[in-house]
């Protein structure tokens, strides 16, 4: 997938490197500039699962959007596998999933999963095989020919996750992908996600505002504070590193300890206030 002239993907490089990045919205015309991110540093190693957690307006979604090159930083630099976010985006280095599934309603489940492959010129047979495999992975093999409006919200989200994995990216960006789901579906999908990640060895940047979710999924939890958006603390979790997690982990003592630690970090900063700007 590498075109000449671009720096090649460096597999030894960190998946994501964020160096003193700031993002300021609204240059003066309105009530004054809003500092969404202020001098943020973060490194995500290849294959590492990192969650961003924090109150609304702490800039966690903004940070994810900057890495995805859906937005540009006001200051600082970001690299994805050693290249600029734009190069990474054009080279299809990452897969992405949002809070809404965002499936194309006129495409079948299969065709939705095949979409990124088709856009990048993968052959028909290979596309089909990939989609088949991924749908099996998310447990929707029987629904390949259904349309999105025939699926429940949780199923749609699973299709979106399958789509994010379609190109076997070594980096996955997820912006509250389970945010709109009920608790039971959510926990089941969390287990599925850790299983798929363990299989594909992809690095994940995962935005959430659920403490249990962050702890259950992550190797490291990045706790952020709002106004200005800063990294408050980074909590090492690493429950059964690298391996797929099971639901029994949720009763584990280490799990509860980590939850407590993240909660303390969240409340240790400035008391959570209601803030106006939320960027999803």
């Amino acid at each position, binding site marked *: 997938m590498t075109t000449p002239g671009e720096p090649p993907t460096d597999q030894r490089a960190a998946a994501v490197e964020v160096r003193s990045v700031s993002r300021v919205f609204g240059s003066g015309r309105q009530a004054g500039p809003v500092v969404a991110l202020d001098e943020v540093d973060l490194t995500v190693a290849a294959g590492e699962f990192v969650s961003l957690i924090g109150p609304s307006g702490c800039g966690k979604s903004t940070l994810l959007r900057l890495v*995805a090159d*859906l937005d540009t930083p006001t200051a600082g630099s970001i690299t994805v596998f050693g290249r600029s976010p734009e190069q990474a*985006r054009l080279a299809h280095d*990452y897969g992405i999933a949002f809070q809404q599934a965002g499936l*194309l*309603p*006129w495409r079948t489940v299969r065709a939705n999963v095949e979409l990124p492959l088709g856009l990048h010129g993968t052959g028909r047979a290979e596309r089909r095989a990939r989609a088949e495999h991924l749908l099996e992975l998310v447990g929707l093999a029987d629904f390949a020919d259904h349309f*999105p409006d025939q699926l429940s919200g949780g199923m749609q989200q699973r299709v979106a996750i399958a789509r994010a994995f379609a190109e076997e990216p070594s980096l996955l960006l997820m912006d509250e992908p389970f945010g709109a789901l009920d608790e039971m579906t959510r926990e089941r999908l969390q287990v599925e996600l850790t299983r798929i990640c363990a299989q594909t060895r992809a690095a994940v940047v995962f935005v959430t505002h659920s403490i249990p979710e962050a702890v259950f999924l992550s190797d490291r939890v990045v706790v952020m504070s709002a106004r200005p958006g800063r990294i408050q603390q980074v909590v090492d979790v690493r429950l059964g590193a690298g391996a797929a997690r099971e639901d029994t982990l949720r009763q584990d003592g280490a799990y509860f300890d980590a939850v407590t630690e993240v909660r303390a970090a969240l409340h240790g900063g400035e008391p959570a206030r209601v803030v106006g700007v939320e960027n999803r």
Partner: protein
Amino acid sequence: MTATMIRWSRALRLPDAALGLLGLLGLALLWELYKALGPADGWSIGGTRVLPRTTDLAMPHTWDVLIRLGEPLTAAPGAPPLWVAVAQASLFSLGIALAGWAIGVVVGFALAVLMARVRVAENAVLPLVVLSQTVPLIALAPVVRSWGSRIQVAGVTWEAWMSVAVIASYLAFFPVAVGALRGLQSPETLHTELMRAYGTGWWTTLVRLRLPASVPYVLPALRLAAANAVVGTVVAEVSTGLPGGVGRMILEFANFASSDPARPWAPLMGAVALGLLVAGLVGALGLPLARYRRTEVPA
């Protein structure tokens, strides 16, 4: 109202076509009801007639019109039945209307894509598009005809029917331009950002996302354009004086209002049938596009 009728038709298991026929029958019934009960001289307020006269001259019986359709056009020997003459004229107009519709759809879509592509174009062109519809067709017809008559490209001479098609397209492009623009702009930020994340360019995004998303907006616009093209054709036939079509026939047959009262109604029915036929054809276009009318249920 419509919803109620649809529910009725479902309850009675009537196909849509039967429902349409029922509507026509209802209209005929209304006509006859007014003719039977309305005052013979109509009803006037201060010299202005607000309700028509109900004499056989002004309002022939529906069945008289139908019977007249089966009779010869003129008393001359060998004259074709009236319905054949009307059908021929309608088919002639149908061809022109379809040509006008096609031109209008292409131009309207091209404008919509341009406006969707360039923000400046939307601000500059959209007011002109709206303005264009305020120019009276009657004023436009002679201009188009005189310009057209001067065009002669590579042995193709401009024919009178082409002027009519152009005028019809002038009415047809408007709903397409507005509807398609709305449709092309309909994808959510979520979807456009997804396409951006896939590193796709504007044209690929147009083909894979914006065009499919525009279908639910474009189909009704195409229907409106079809109706407009028929109206435009009939009016332009009259104002450019093009013989052979149903528009000119309406004008000619109006002279027979007193001697042959059922005859002027025949080309009107032809025009109505023409409109229904064109709308039906365009409606059929939507059948293979059914999947594009699905909507995603929010998670």
